[in-house]
C-alpha cells in the first residue's frame, strides 16, 4: 500500500512570540508531532515560511524591508536561520531534515518538475523530512511577503500528496485539506491532528466537491 504523503504548511509567525523570539515549546511540540507522524509511516514534507521574518530579526532591522532587493538579501540571511531552527528542534527527536529551495516558475518546466519529484522521493526513501521554502534570493517573481500557500499547493502537486495540513494559528489549530478538496477539516491540537489524519486515510468520501469548512479569505481556494 502506498504511503500517505502529507504536506505540512507552517507559517513561522505562528511560532514566534511577541518579542520576536521563537517559542521553544511550540517548535519542540511541532518537531515531536511531525516526527511521530513520520514514525507512524506517513511521508511528511514541510513547506515553511519565515525567512524574511527571521532574517529581519537576525539583522536587528527596525522595519520589515520594503524593496525587492532588500527583501531578497534579508531572505538569504533568514533562510540559513530557518533551516538551522528546524534542524535543532528535529535533532532532539533524532529526525534528519533537508533544505529544499524552489522557485515557483518550476511549474513551467516539466523536466524540472520531474527532477524535483525524484529528489523528494529519494529524500523520503532515506527517511528524511524535507523543509521546503521559496528560493527568494534568486527568484525573479515578486516576493509575496511570507505567503506561501501557492508554494504548498505546488509542492503538493509535484509530490502527488494526499493531504495538505495547514497550521492555522498560535493555538494549535490545524486545517486538513485532502486531495480533491472534497472535505476539509479543522482540528484542535496535535493529538487530534494525528488521529484525524489516520482516520481520514481510511475513509474515502466521495460526496459533492464542497469543503466542509469555509476557507478563510486569506487562504483562498485550495484545490490540488
Amino acid at each position, binding site marked *: 500500500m502506498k504511503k500517505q504523503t502529507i504536506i505540512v504548511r507552517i507559517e513561522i509567525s505562528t511560532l514566534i512570540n511577541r518579542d520576536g523570539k521563537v517559542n521553544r515549546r511550540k517548535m519542540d511540540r511541532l518537531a515531536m508531532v511531525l516526527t*511521530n507522524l513520520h*514514525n*507512524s*509511516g506517513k511521508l511528511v514534507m514541510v513547506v515553511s515560511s519565515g525567512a524574511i521574518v527571521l532574517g529581519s530579526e537576525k539583522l536587528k532591522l527596525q522595519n520589515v524591508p520594503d524593496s525587492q532587493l532588500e527583501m531578497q538579501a534579508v531572505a538569504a540571511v533568514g533562510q540559513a536561520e530557518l533551516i538551522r531552527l528546524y534542524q535543532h528542534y528535529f535533532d532532539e*527527536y*533524532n529526525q534528519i531534515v533537508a533544505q529544499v529551495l524552489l522557485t515557483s516558475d518550476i511549474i513551467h518546466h516539466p523536466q524540472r518538475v520531474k527532477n524535483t519529484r525524484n529528489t523528494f522521493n529519494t529524500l523520503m526513501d*532515506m527517511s528524511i523530512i524535507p523543509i521546503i521554502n521559496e528560493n527568494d534570493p534568486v527568484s525573479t517573481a515578486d516576493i509575496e511577503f511570507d505567503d506561501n500557500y501557492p508554494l504548498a499547493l505546488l509542492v503538493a502537486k509535484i509530490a502527488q500528496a494526499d493531504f495538505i495540513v495547514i497550521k492555522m494559528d498560535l493555538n494549535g489549530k490545524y486545517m486538513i485539506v485532502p486531495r480533491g478538496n472534497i472535505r476539509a477539516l479543522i482540528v484542535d491540537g496535535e*493529538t487530534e491532528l*494525528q488521529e484525524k489524519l489516520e482516520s481520514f486515510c481510511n475513509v474515502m468520501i466521495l460526496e459533492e466537491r464542497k469543503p466542509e469548512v469555509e476557507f478563510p479569505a486569506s487562504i483562498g481556494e485550495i484545490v490540488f
Partner: protein
Amino acid sequence: MDYRDVLKNKHRIVVKIGTSSLSYPNGRMNFHCIEKLAYVLSALRRRGVQVILVTSGAIGVGAGRLGLTVKPQELSKKQALAAVGQAELIKIYQKFFEEYNQTVAQVLLTKDVVNTPSRNQNAKRTLIKLLDMDIIPIINENDTIATYEIEFGDNDTLSAMVATLLDADLLVILSDIDGLYSADPRSGVPAEIIHSVSEITPEVEQLASGAGSSFSTGGMVTKISAAKICLKDGIDCIITSGSDPAIIFDILQGKEIGTHFIAGHEKMINHV
C-alpha cells in the same frame, strides 16, 4: 476478600514495556506512548512510589533508524542495531521524562551479572542508590554485547529477575494483549480474561501456549514464566495491554485490569 486491594499499597514497582507498545510496526518509536509512560511513571515517583522501567525496542529502533525493514539474522548486525537503537531510545526517554522534571538513568544488564552473587549485589546497590536519589532507572538487556550464554533472550524474564533482585513488590508487564485468556480469542469459542491466578499450574501454562490451537502469542509463554518467577518470590504480577500506560494508575487503585498473578496464596483461584 478482594485480592486486588494489595495493589493499593505498592512501594517499589517494576514496569516492563514491550516493543509492540513502544514502537510502530516499522520499529520507529511511538511518541504518544512514550510521552504517556513518562507522565505516568513521573507522577508515581512524585507520589513516593519507587519505579523501575524495563524497556525493549533497541534493535527495532536501530533498524528503523537505518531504514531496514527486515530484522537481520546475523548476530553482529543485530548487536550493531542494538547499539544504535539503545542510544536513541535512551535519548528519547530522557527528553520525555525531562518534561516532567524526572531524571532517568540507563542500566544495561546481562544474565551473568544477575545470576552471579557478587556481581548482582553490586548491581542491586547501584539500582537502590538510584532509587534513593529519586531517579528512575531504565533497564534493558545489554544486547550489544550479549551472546547466547549470557543473554536472557527476552525482557519478560529480565523484568522478573530485576523484580526479585530488588525486592520489588509488583511487576507490571505491558504488552499487546489484555491478559491471559481462557481460550483463544480468535477461535470463535467464547473467551474471557482470567482476572486472577494464584498458582501457575500445568493448566495455566497450557492456556498460555495455546495447546490445541494456533494461538501462541509466543510472548505469553515468557510472560507466564516471568509471573512464575515473581510468585516464587512473593511478588505480585499483572499482565495487561500497554496501549495506554495510564492503565498503571488503575492497576494501583486495585481495579480489575488484566490478569493478576497473586503472590502468597496456596490455592488456585480462577475468577472469570
